[in-house]
C-alpha cells in the first residue's frame, strides 16, 4: 500500500472512532450508543452505502466529521439518505461544517428523490462558532427552509435521542414521523434558558420529555424504549412509505386479519352509548400485525395509523368511541388533518371508520379554536385526492362526518354497516331541540315521558339505515363480515384514480 493510500485509510479509521475518550464516556454514561454502532441497527446488513463529508474539519482531531455522519444506506432493499449526530464530538453540536453536511444531505434527498432519516442527538448550535451562521444564506439557517420545501416531496423521518433544545428541536417537528426515545426531550429553549429568561424552574422531562410530547403537545408520533426498538420502528415506518411523492407505497403479500371478520358484528354494540374497542375492529379488517398507530397517546378520541389491507398500504382514520365517546376535539382535529395530509402527500389511500357524536361543544373547545381547527380536518379530507373509503360504523351525528369523509366530501364510496346511524344529532337531543315547548305543555309527567319516547322513535325511524340506504344516502349497506373484502375491492378499483382540484396557487387554510 502506498503512503497516500495508507494516509487516507488511517485518517478514515481515526474519524470513524468519533470524538475523544471523554465524549465516548459521556455517551456510555447516558446509556446511549456511539453513532456508528447506532446506525448499524437501521440499515440492511448494518452497512452504510456511501458516506460523504467524513473528512470535514479533519485538521482538528477533536472534531471528527464535525460531529455528524451523513450518507446513504439501504433499508429493506431501498436506498435512503441519513444524517446522524455524533454526541461524542462536542455533544453533537452543530458547527459550520456540520450544518453544511446536513444541508447537503437534504439537497441530495430532494435531487435523488429518496427519503431522509435524521438521527438527532445534539446539544444544538455550537455557540462558540456560530457568529451569524444561523442566518447565513447557506448552512444552519437553511435547514428549516429545506425541511419546509421537502415536506410532502420526500419522506423525512426523525429519531430523537438525549436532550435536544433550541436549533435541534426544530428538525424533529418538521419530520413526517418523529420517534422519540422514552428518555429524550426537546424544547424551543433549554430549562436553563427558560429559567434565565422567564424565571420558570422546570425539568427537561416536564418541559419537553417524550411523555409530554406524545400525550400533550402531540409533536411525537412514536416512543421507543430502546435504541433497537427505535431503529425497528423507523424501518417499519418506511415500509409504509414510497421513496417520494412520485411513487406508490410498496405492497406486500396479503395476510389474513388477526381477528376473524365474522366477529365484526359482535364487536359493535347497538347502543350508541356503549363503548367498544376500535382497535379490535381495525384488527378485523387489516392484515395481521400491520397496523402501526401514530400518536396513540395523544387525542385518543381519534385513532390514526398506517396499515395494510390485502398487502396494500392504507391510512386508517377512526373515531374511538371508548374515549370521549369519539367526539372530535381541537387536538384530534389537528391529529386527523395532519395524518390525512401525510397520507395524501405519499399516495396512501384512506379508510375512514365513522363513529362520532360530532365536534365537541362548549367554552373550553371554543377557546381552543374548535371551529378553526375542525375546519383544518374538513379541509384536509376535502382536498385529499387519494382513494378514500368512508365506512359508517355506528353513530354519525352532526358535522363530524364531514371531516370523516362523509358522502358530500367526495369519497370514492360510502359504505354503511347495519349498526349505522346518520343524523344531525341523536334522538334525545333532537326531540328536546324541536319539541321542547310542545312537550313542556304536557303537565302529566308520565304522559310527557310517553310522548317524548314516541317522538324519539319516530325520529329514529327517520335515520334508519335501511331507509337511508334506500334513499342512496350511502352507496351500499353491507354485511359486517364482508367489511374487509368490500373495502379492499374499492381500494383496488380506485388504485389508478386521478382527479384534479380547481386551479389555485394553494388554499388559504393551514
Amino acid at each position, binding site marked *: 500500500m502506498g503512503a497516500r493510500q495508507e494516509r487516507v485509510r488511517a485518517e478514515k479509521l481515526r474519524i470513524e472512532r468519533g470524538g475523544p475518550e471523554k465524549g465516548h464516556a459521556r455517551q456510555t454514561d447516558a446509556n446511549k450508543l456511539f453513532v456508528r454502532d447506532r446506525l448499524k441497527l437501521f440499515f440492511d446488513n448494518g452497512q452504510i452505502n456511501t458516506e460523504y463529508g467524513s473528512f470535514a474539519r479533519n485538521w482538528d482531531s477533536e472534531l471528527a466529521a464535525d460531529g455528524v455522519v451523513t450518507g446513504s444506506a439501504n433499508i429493506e432493499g431501498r436506498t435512503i439518505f441519513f444524517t446522524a449526530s455524533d454526541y461524542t464530538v462536542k455533544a453533537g453540536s452543530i458547527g459550520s461544517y456540520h450544518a453544511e453536511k446536513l444541508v447537503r444531505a437534504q439537497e441530495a434527498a430532494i435531487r435523488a428523490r429518496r427519503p431522509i432519516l435524521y438521527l438527532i442527538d445534539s446539544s444544538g448550535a455550537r455557540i462558540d462558532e456560530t457568529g451569524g451562521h444561523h442566518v447565513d444564506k447557506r448552512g444552519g439557517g437553511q435547514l428549516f427552509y429545506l425541511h419546509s420545501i421537502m415536506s410532502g416531496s420526500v419522506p423525512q423521518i426523525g429519531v430523537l435521542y438525549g436532550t435536544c433544545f433550541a436549533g435541534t428541536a426544530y428538525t424533529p417537528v418538521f419530520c413526517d414521523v418523529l420517534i422519540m426515545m422514552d428518555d429524550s426531550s426537546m424544547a424551543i429553549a433549554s430549562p436553563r434558558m427558560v429559567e434565565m429568561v422567564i424565571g420558570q424552574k422546570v425539568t427537561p422531562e416536564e418541559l419537553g420529555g417524550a411523555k409530554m410530547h406524545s400525550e400533550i403537545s402531540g409533536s411525537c408520533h412514536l416512543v421507543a424504549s430502546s435504541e433497537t426498538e427505535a431503529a425497528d420502528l423507523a424501518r417499519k415506518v418506511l415500509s409504509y412509505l414510497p421513496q417520494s411523492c412520485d411513487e406508490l407505497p410498496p405492497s406486500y403479500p396479503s395476510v389474513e386479519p388477526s381477528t376473524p371478520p365474522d366477529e365484526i358484528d359482535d364487536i359493535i354494540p347497538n347502543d350508541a352509548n356503549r363503548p367498544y374497542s376500535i382497535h379490535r375492529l381495525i384488527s378485523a379488517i387489516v392484515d395481521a400485525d400491520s397496523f402501526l398507530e401514530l400518536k396513540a397517546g395523544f387525542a385518543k378520541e381519534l385513532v390514526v395509523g398506517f396499515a395494510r389491507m390485502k398487502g396494500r398500504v392504507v391510512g386508517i382514520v377512526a373515531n374511538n368511541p371508548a374515549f370521549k365517546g369519539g*367526539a372530535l376535539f381541537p387536538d384530534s382535529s389537528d391529529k386527523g388533518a395532519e395524518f390525512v395530509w401525510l397520507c395524501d402527500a405519499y399516495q396512501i389511500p384512506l379508510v375512514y371508520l365513522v363513529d362520532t357524536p360530532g365536534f*365537541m361543544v362548549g367554552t373550553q373547545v371554543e377557546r381552543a379554536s374548535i371551529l378553526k381547527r375542525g375546519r383544518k380536518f374538513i379541509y384536509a379530507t376535502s382536498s385529499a385526492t387519494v382513494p378514500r373509503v368512508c365506512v359508517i360504523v355506528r353513530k354519525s351525528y352532526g358535522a363530524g362526518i364531514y371531516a370523516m369523509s362523509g358522502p358530500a366530501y367526495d369519497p370514492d364510496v360510502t359504505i354503511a354497516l347495519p349498526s349505522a346511524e346518520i343524523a344531525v344529532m*341523536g334522538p334525545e337531543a333532537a326531540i328536546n331541540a324541536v319539541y321542547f315547548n310542545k312537550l313542556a305543555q304536557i303537565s302529566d309527567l308520565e304522559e310527557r315521558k310517553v310522548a317524548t319516547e314516541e317522538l324519539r322513535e319516530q325520529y329514529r325511524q327517520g335515520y334508519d339505515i335501511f331507509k337511508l340506504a334506500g334513499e342512496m344516502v350511502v352507496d351500499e349497506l353491507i354485511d359486517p363480515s364482508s367489511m374487509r373484502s368490500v373495502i379492499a375491492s374499492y381500494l383496488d378499483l380506485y388504485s389508478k384514480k386521478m382527479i384534479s382540484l380547481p386551479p389555485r396557487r394553494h388554499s388559504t387554510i393551514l
Partner: protein
Amino acid sequence: MSDVKSPMTGTIVKLLAQIGSPVESGQQLALIESMKLEIPVESDASGVLKSYLVAEGDFIEEGSTIAVVE
C-alpha cells in the same frame, strides 16, 4: 390519594359508588352526559372512595376532580 378527574365536559347524571366503599382501578365511579352520550368516569387507582366533589346534575369541565380515592 388519587383524584379522579372528568374525562370530558358535561353533566353528572349518576354517581355509581358509595362513599367509604372499596374501589378498583378501572371501576366506573360516575356517568357524565355529554354530546348526547353517557361517558363513564373511571378510577385510576384502587383504594377506598373517600369523597365525591360533585352531585348528580352538576355541570363539570373536562379535567375537574369529581372524586377522591385513597
